[in-house]
């Protein structure tokens, strides 16, 4: 409990954009050997890496520390801060919390690590572990995924129930004690699949997306289910206050795996973007816009990215029958001014930039190529070395000037789409000129990095109650 307010809390996205540049980036990376073979490193845990991202520092673009988890096979994936700017929301204010702890779930193990970034933010330490049994008993859920700091507690989505099947959903964690409190939903309506979620906080509206149940994802994508249109294809609209399902916005089962949910940061703007991985008709990927019109929530496709023709010999067995490489939009991120949307095409190895000032008509602004199933585009720092994996988790700095990108998706899916294996990397992009920073190429020998969190906050962490 502090006497004064945490300086990283901002009442509005507008003010957060004036925040000083981040000096550290946190990246979770999992140990693939723990999941694959009888390798001697099988027993090693996943890591939280701290990267120096201060260009004036001597250790710029280097890993400062690796915090190894005491268990192996957690598969660290998404994670988030214990508290953020939503603590300033006037209905349930907690302005004297600190943005200090990282809440890091193991997607495969259902274990949750609470990691303290103090006293030395370059050398974080584990301060608490929530065991899978505790989580399942208290909340009825497993496979914790997205973490969002709410004004009244920490909200976490989970892909499966306590028996490893559906339905998945959301649970709440106390933001003082970090104890899981229980299931969030009171009335889930037709919702069954879970993945990501976020909210329009000033409208008391929560939105949740759909991937699949644990058996549908943990051993890789199931081709027959995909071709039958069985993966998630709806966005659910909820009453955040009454914890009640309001409406399912169905994209149609041509569209498979509706993943990342990115509402506008300005609480007066009632729209947001949803990334969809693949169309089973033509393997294209798409981005959808949900919006409120005439007092009703609606959704429409605003971006479509086609699959590219490819020589079947260059494709993994899964894709050979199609002779095409799908873009596979696995992450999207919206800058704090709601102006630019960045779209990761993990399959084709591209990061697209769109001007979404008019959200109904995104304007394509540019494309960065790196990695990719077929293209394997190298980084300018090592122009001879073909890279595997592709743009995946994308994070924008608060001022919108820098973008960070990692390349691994999820172990079982990595193996299917990149059967030669993925060597982990993190790159940095100058947002304005939209080019890779030549000197910034961080490798993760033996590990595969996933989500990036920036010190003090980024563009997919904080929510704001003031415009």
């Amino acid at each position, binding site marked *: *409990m502090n006497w004064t307010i945490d300086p990283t809390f901002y009442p*509005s996205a507008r003010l957060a954009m004036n925040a000083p540049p981040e000096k550290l980036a946190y990246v979770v990376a999992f140990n693939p050997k723990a999941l694959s073979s009888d390798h001697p490193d099988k027993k090693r845990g996943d890591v939280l890496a701290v990267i120096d991202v201060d260009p004036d520092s001597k250790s710029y673009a280097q890993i400062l520390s690796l915090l190894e988890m005491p268990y192996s096979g957690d598969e660290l994936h998404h994670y988030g801060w214990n508290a953020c700017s939503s603590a300033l929301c*006037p209905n349930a204010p*907690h*302005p004297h919390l600190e943005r200090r702890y990282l809440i890091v779930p193991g997607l495969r193990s259902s274990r949750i690590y609470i990691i303290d970034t103090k006293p030395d933010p370059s050398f974080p330490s584990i301060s608490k572990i929530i065991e899978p049994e505790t989580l399942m008993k208290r909340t009825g859920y497993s496979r914790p995924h997205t973490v969002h700091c709410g*004004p009244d507690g920490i909200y976490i989505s989970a892909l499966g129930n306590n028996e490893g099947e559906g339905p998945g959903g959301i649970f709440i964690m106390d933001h003082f004690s970090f104890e899981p409190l229980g299931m969030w939903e009171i009335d889930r309506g037709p919702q069954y699949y879970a993945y990501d979620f976020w909210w329009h906080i000033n409208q008391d509206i929560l939105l949740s997306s759909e991937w699949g149940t644990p058996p549908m994802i943990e051993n890789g994508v199931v081709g027959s289910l995909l071709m039958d249109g069985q993966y998630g294809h709806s966005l659910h609209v909820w009453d955040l206050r009454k914890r009640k399902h309001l409406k399912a916005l169905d994209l149609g089962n041509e569209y498979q795996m509706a993943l990342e949910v990115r509402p506008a940061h300005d609480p*007066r703007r009632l729209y947001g973007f949803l990334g969809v991985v693949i169309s089973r008709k033509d393997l294209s990927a798409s981005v959808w816009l949900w919006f409120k019109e005439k007092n009703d929530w609606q959704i429409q496709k605003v971006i479509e990215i086609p699959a590219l023709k490819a020589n079947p010999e260059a494709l993994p067995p899964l894709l050979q029958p199609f002779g095409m490489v799908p873009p596979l939009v696995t992450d999207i991120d919206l800058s704090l001014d709601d102006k630019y949307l960045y779209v990761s095409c993990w399959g084709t190895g591209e990061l697209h930039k769109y001007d979404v000032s008019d959200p109904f008509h995104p304007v394509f602004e540019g494309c960065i190529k790196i990695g990719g199933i077929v293209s394997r585009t190298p980084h300018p720092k090592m122009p001879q070395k073909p890279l595997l994996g592709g743009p995946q988790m994308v994070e924008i700095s608060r001022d919108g000037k820098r973008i960070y990108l990692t390349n691994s998706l999820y172990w079982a899916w990595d193996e299917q789409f990149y059967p030669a294996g993925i060597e982990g990397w993190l790159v940095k992009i100058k947002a304005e000129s939209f080019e890779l920073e030549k000197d910034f190429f961080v490798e993760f020998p033996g590990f595969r990095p996933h989500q990036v969190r920036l010190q003090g906050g980024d563009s997919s962490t904080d929510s704001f109650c*003031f*415009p």
Partner: protein
Amino acid sequence: MSIESLGYYLGIGIFHGLNPAMGWLFAVALGLQHNSFRWIVRSAIALLTGHFLSVGSYFACFLLLGKWVSLQWIKWMAVIALFSFAFYWLIRSRHPKWVGMNVGVADLIYWSFLMASAHGAGLMLLVGSSFCSRSLAFWLQPSGITAQLFIPPAMHTLGYFLAVIVIATIVYRSDLLKVLYRKWINFDLLWSAALFAAGSWIALN
């Protein structure tokens, strides 16, 4: 009723109103969200109503109890209640989400009522009764009970309302939030200290 006691009620009211968590910030957020100053006024009136209902019922409970229970009992009940609230705000300063952000006037009245009740605001008025050179016994006299019931909560709520409406208006009109939010000190700790002080005062008198 003395000037000092009226001043005390008003002052405690202003102190409550200064705390951003007690309402003015909510009024500003609603004003900005709806892009309308009318929401500042509407919110302030709703907040006032909820606050008055809470403080009034606390005060009335203790005064009416005084008709049946001895003064000593009242005194120690008040002390225990004050200390309990003080401890609560010291060690468990949670602000549950009683309402969302998409609120109307009725929600705001409800929110303000709960917020004032959870902070034990009404108890502080009781302290005023012994604080302002009057013994508790004076307030528990059967004569003029209506005035005694009504005036302290009303004065208190007036102070609260003035603070809320003035701060919310200034912050809304002059876009002061970007400067002012940085000064948000920990009112929960301050409030806890005030409750401790008040409890001790009654106990020692």
